[in-house]
């Protein structure tokens, strides 16, 4: 071969320089609201998105779906399934819930619809027409099976395997290929072969082991009738029998399947559903449903610890568990412990994180205080003692869960949406005194949603408003909050849900029933 190049090594360098090599890996799937069971909103690793690659970050695609908005609801934040071997090929999918009881699967490599399922209302009570307080339709985001333990890194997708260096080897004469365990000696050469009739040993035994892992690979949807539908991600067809979960016409939120249990919260006393947390033991044949009522205190949201403990936040009310963070048993929802603070209105879900072997909760209160609690005993002995409270200032928090992540230096960060910014706080634990300290405040935003962190890049969503401001996505320097990139005027409606992410992409959903994808383009 007459090589026309200066040399392979030089060309290899070119290949590396232009980034032609494959990563063969995907980001952890965003499987539920807040990314994981702890609601961290943190994608710990992504093979493409990073501070260094933001110069290539751009609008990728948008897809308008045929959903009808209900009140101010339209689409729910996408949940992702980065690599699914379907009968139509390997697909990278995001699933989006629509307020009109629709579920959409979108091939996120191309922004094309993969399937759509409309869930027919099947409850005995008539479907509620909707009001601003109780919009009806599907209100909770979709969820996939979610690990109780958060992901720690990239996963090899499909048939990808860790790269190994190529190598050539040569064996000894007559010994076969290198590293081969020599088999039995060769049979003696045979004589004339006409006509030899023989049959090779028949293959015996059973099939290879296969099939799904312990968690079902379904897309769980809770439509207006409160009957949970487990959808096959390949087709959108029913993958399991529908199971009655919530009263019809409830305003459900925060759906999550984790540890074999499907959870949701209900709000605003819609339908006949009280303010409550609900848990269906999905793995039990009868699929029993447990409920914990807050006795009138609005549910702010919930997150799970890695042991399955449910941490619920509540707002004001006359209930003993108003203005509280309550920990519940993962299946029975029996109260395990709690923290209460008179006047603290917790409108947002707590977020759970672990540092130094200790698990913490942090949750914003409406008045601008940010609480840090010990997950094992949220209020201490008297149920009133927080580990630390960031005092209120002139900020007010949005009813949006905070996000949390740890940077490469090991610093734990909390990012929370205020009424017009994202505020960042640093966690510290000096002399066994855990505390949060404000670090930076972002540029002004309109109705910001929960920020997310993707491989060290903070993304903030200026959600916009019905009155005219459109949503804008911002990439922020996570250390300073400085703007690094924004979507400008690309998005032409206001956001109806928070951000989520798939490999190399960040998603925004808007009131006009459009899914927007921004990210790093990958050659197709």
């Amino acid at each position, binding site marked *: 071969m007459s090589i026309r190049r200066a040399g392979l090594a030089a060309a290899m360098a070119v*290949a590396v320089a232009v980034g032609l090599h494959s990563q063969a890996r995907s980001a952890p799937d965003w499987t539920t609201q807040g990314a994981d069971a702890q609601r961290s909103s943190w994608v710990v690793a992504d093979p493409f998105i990073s501070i260094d690659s933001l110069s290539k970050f751009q609008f990728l695609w948008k897809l308008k779906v045929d959903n009808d908005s209900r009140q101010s609801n339209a689409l729910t934040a996408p949940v992702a399934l980065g690599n699914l071997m379907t009968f139509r090929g390997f697909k990278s999918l995001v699933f989006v819930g629509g307020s009109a009881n629709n579920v959409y699967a979108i091939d996120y490599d191309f922004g094309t619809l993969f399937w759509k399922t409309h869930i027919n209302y099947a409850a005995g009570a008539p479907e509620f027409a909707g009001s601003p307080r109780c919009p009806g339709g599907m209100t909770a985001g979709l969820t996939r099976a979610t690990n109780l333990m958060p992901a720690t890194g990239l996963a090899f997708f499909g048939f990808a395997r860790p790269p190994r260096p190529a190598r050539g080897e040569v*064996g000894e004469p007559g010994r076969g290929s290198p590293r081969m365990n020599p088999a039995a000696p060769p049979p003696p050469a045979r004589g004339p072969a006409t006509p030899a009739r023989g049959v090779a040993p028949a293959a015996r035994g059973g099939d290879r082991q296969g099939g799904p892992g312990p968690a079902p690979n379904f897309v769980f949807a809770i439509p207006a009738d409160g009957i949970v539908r487990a959808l096959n991600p390949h087709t959108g067809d029913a993958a399991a029998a529908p199971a009655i979960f919530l009263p019809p016409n409830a305003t459900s939120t925060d759906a999550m399947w984790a540890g074999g249990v499907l959870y949701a919260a209900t709000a605003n006393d819609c339908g006949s559903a009280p303010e409550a947390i609900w848990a269906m033991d999905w793995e039990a044949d009868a699929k029993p449903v447990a409920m914990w009522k807050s006795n009138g205190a609005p549910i702010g949201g919930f997150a799970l610890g890695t042991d399955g403990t449910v941490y619920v936040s509540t707002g004001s009310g006359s209930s003993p568990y108003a203005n509280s963070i309550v920990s519940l048993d993962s299946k029975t929802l029996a109260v395990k412990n709690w923290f209460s603070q008179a006047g603290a209105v917790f409108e947002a879900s707590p977020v759970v994180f672990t540092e130094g072997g200790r698990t913490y909760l942090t949750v914003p209160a409406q008045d601008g205080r940010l609480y840090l609690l010990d997950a094992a005993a949220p209020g201490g002995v008297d149920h009133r003692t927080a580990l630390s409270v960031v005092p209120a200032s002139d900020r007010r928090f949005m009813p949006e869960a905070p996000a949390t992540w740890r940077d490469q230096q090991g610093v734990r960060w909390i990012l929370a949406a205020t009424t017009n910014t994202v505020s960042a706080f640093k966690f510290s634990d000096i002399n066994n005194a855990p505390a949060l300290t404000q670090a930076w405040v972002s540029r002004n935003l309109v109705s910001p949603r929960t920020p997310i962190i993707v491989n060290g890049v903070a993304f903030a969503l200026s959600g916009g408003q019905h009155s005219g401001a459109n949503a804008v996505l911002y990439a922020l320097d996570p250390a300073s909050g400085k703007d690094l990139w924004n979507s400008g005027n690309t998005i032409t409606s206001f956001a109806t849900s928070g951000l989520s992410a798939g490999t190399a992409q960040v998603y925004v959903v808007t009131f006009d029933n459009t899914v927007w994808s921004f990210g790093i383009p990958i050659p197709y």
Partner: protein
Amino acid sequence: MCAGHLIAQAIAPPADWLTDGGDPQRTAWQRNEHTLSVSNVKNFKLLWKYTTDNKPREMHSLFPPLIVGRVNTAAGPKQVAIVAGVSDNIYAIDVATGRLLWQRHFDTTYFPPPGQNGGTLCPGGITATPVIGPGTAPGSYVVYAASWDGRLHQMDVATGNESAPSELFMPPNGKPYALNLWKGVVYTTSAQGCGGNPNLVYAFDLATRKTATFDPGNGGMWGRTGPSISRDGSVFTGTGDGSYNPELRSYGTAVIAVKQDPLTKILKLSDYYGPPNAEYLLKRDLDLQVTGPVFEWKGREFLVQSSKECRLWLLDTSALGGEDHSTAEYRSPLICNEDQNYQAAGVYGAMATYEDPRSTRWVLVPFWGPTHSKFTAPITHGEVFNGAIVAFTLEDRNGQLQLTPAWISRDMNHADPPVVANGVVFGFASGEDNVLINAPPPFGAQAMTTGTPGRVSRSSHAVLYALNGQTGEELWSSGDQITSWNHFSGISVANGRVYIATFDGAVYCFGLPQ
């Protein structure tokens, strides 16, 4: 038939088809065909059908017949077809009569543990089409075959007797693909990690009895007709799903060239090509699993490659992919597989290439599934649903090489690798069901039978087609004469006859009536 043809036929030596794909370059071009032609192929008939006692393993059964035009036997010169069966069988058939000359069943040294079942992808048994080389005496030939236990057997084509003791070659129970023979070295590639074995390029040096391997670092190599070999002995293969990381010397989802060191016999990487969208190809399991033919054109040598993605890459063998190893001389648009599915769509197996009397270079590409909605050719022959052959011509347009679509054949129920002889393109519809994963049924509904049993039950029958090489027009077909189908097999052509073997153990010979 004109007098000129008769004279040519009388004086020309009989043609051979000694290796899968016709030659080490895997052109699938029978250059020495003097009997059949575009004008007479319409008279093709079933000349004979021989049913072997080979037992299928999973979906594998028989491999494409190899043809030796003139073998000196004890009964005089004969034209012999050598057919390998997956159950460690080799059959020699007298082409003139369609009768068995001899058969051999290899005495295996590998005994699978109880309960072992590799599934459809790892059938066990012989999985590589043998290769035939010259013997020591004029008119003698040696067939080289790799048995289930990984041994390399060498047999006299005339008798089936072993011309040398079998040799340790590969680990047992692997899945090598068609053997290739180049200057005393038997090459093959393996895939699917069958038997727990790594996916490697293998080279057995007949002179030294040394086996060399090359591990591309990632990805199985499952071009159906094995590796192709260029004029300087470089061995080319596509690599399947695997990480393409040249900086880590990992060459999955790529095309690699390896070459034997003449002194040490070690196989060394000499070049590689990584598609710009390797990441995407890997993610979607659109691996480069096609044997790419090598050919010369206007003083340069090229390799054409493809994959399940269903596009072509034209590569200069002297610098695969140019300076950055990712810039093909020409990259075609997608031909098929609009859904970008890893199964039942795309280019599978191998391609063919030939030069017509006007020195036009043709590339023939079989594919499965419908054509891409944006792909067309000047000549088409009806809508394509299940597969077809598309023909390209190689052109130089102002210094830019281009593969220009010329025609798309009629619909074929999974078009498998074609062969070409004297201006006639022979293609075949395998008739197999090649859906690995069917649509899951809704909850409570009956699922389709999966795996080999389901696919076998849903397969139909193969059809052989003769097409005009210039236009793709159908000149003849076997219709319903072939009653079974085949999987990962092929066809061969020599001396006015075309051969196809099927799952039920039958070998069919179609040709001009004698």
